[in-house]
């Protein structure tokens, strides 16, 4: 009982910082998500239908991004760009790093979706006199889009969790709020319990929303 009262008292004192940290976390996510989705949209056609050099370059980019830690990608941007005379904010560095890695993962998801549509759908579309581009736009992409809703949702949830890495370069997001509050409040576990719960609520809510959307869309076409 004492413990609980104590915990709530600490959380009450932590509340204002939690709110501002949460706002930063959400901002990082909201900035990175469209960038990642668009970046993947750019990568996918280059990877799938670009000439052999473009294919190789985008392939190398995607594999490099998928097989190296996000933390290092963020460090590379944050500590590397100043050498080129560029000084983006910590926030920007974090957003760019996250978007660059997740664009690579999303591009693989997009490609998988497009390749999963059977050749017969292409045949049916082209037999009607559709050009390749018309068939892609009207027949293949809409179906692929429906099919990858779930995987995209999962990837975005991972992205939201990955925003916590921006704390490593000093962005005062939810995770960083925890670290800086330790000295002020002279407690540790209580702080990170609160932070863990907030992340859990955030990813849980996002997951629930994405599942509802997916079910709504998919139940139509069975």
């Amino acid at each position: 009982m004492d413990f609980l009262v104590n915990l709530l008292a600490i959380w009450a004192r932590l509340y204002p910082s939690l709110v501002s940290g949460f706002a930063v976390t959400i901002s990082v996510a909201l900035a990175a998500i469209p960038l990642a989705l668009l970046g993947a949209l750019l990568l996918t056609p280059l990877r799938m239908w670009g000439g052999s050099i473009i294919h190789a370059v985008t392939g190398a980019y995607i594999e490099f991004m998928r097989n190296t830690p996000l933390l290092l990608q963020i460090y590379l941007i944050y500590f590397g760009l100043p050498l080129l005379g560029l000084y983006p904010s910590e926030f920007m560095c974090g957003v760019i790093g996250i978007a660059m890695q997740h664009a690579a993962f999303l591009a693989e998801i997009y490609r998988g979706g497009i390749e999963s549509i059977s050749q017969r759908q292409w045949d049916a579309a082209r037999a009607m006199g559709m050009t390749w581009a018309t068939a892609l736009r009207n027949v293949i992409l809409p179906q692929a889009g429906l099919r990858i809703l779930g995987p995209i949702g999962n990837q975005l949830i991972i992205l939201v969790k990955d925003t916590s890495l921006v704390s490593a370069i000093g962005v005062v997001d939810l995770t960083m709020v925890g670290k800086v509050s330790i000295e002020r409040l002279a407690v540790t576990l209580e702080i990170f319990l609160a932070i863990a719960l907030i992340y859990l609520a955030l990813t849980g809510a996002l997951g629930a929303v994405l599942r509802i959307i997916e079910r709504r869309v998919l139940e139509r076409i069975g």
Partner: protein
Amino acid sequence: MMPNVLINNLPYLLKGALVTLELSVVVLIAGNLLGLVIGIVATSVGRIGQSLITAYIFVLRGIPILVIMLLGYYAFPALGYRVPAYVAVGVAQIIYVSAFVAEIVRSAILSVPSGQIAAARSLGMRRFSILKEIVLPQATRIAIPPLLNNSLTAIKQTSYVSVVGVWELTYAAREVVERTLASFQIFLGVMAIYFIICYPLSLLARRWERRAAVVQ
């Protein structure tokens, strides 16, 4: 900014890579074993046990690994245990990985058609031998690609222990960059080391994915 900064510091970085490898091996073995047990148990216990495991999986998977590590890092001293930092974050990583493994194993087992189990039972097979002869072999084929991908993620996220001060490859890289300011060379070089560790696993995962697609 000559590439010799990387070459000069390579021995030091490779020492870090060795620690990263050790950490990865421990986390992968322990995390996968723990997750395997939890996943199998989840499919063979009662309602309450299932709910507990579901909660375990849901909670851990919904929280960033960094936060789980910080919780682990502060939990030991708060509970009155003094352990080295690498033990605390190592345990946190193992538990985190186990939740993902448990979910993969559980859903792979549940995806084996119930008709198969009914058929085996009608042959008079016992519960344990049904699991061993019928369910697990089929579930294994389904689970291997996601397990490999999960292991890939686990290796990459061992780098996050550097954030709480555990010395390994990424920590070593930061030290060298602070000393030399050669951020491009060092970080790209270190990323290349991670790539060399991770890429074969990535290829393996893709091979198994393709094989699974053919079986279906």
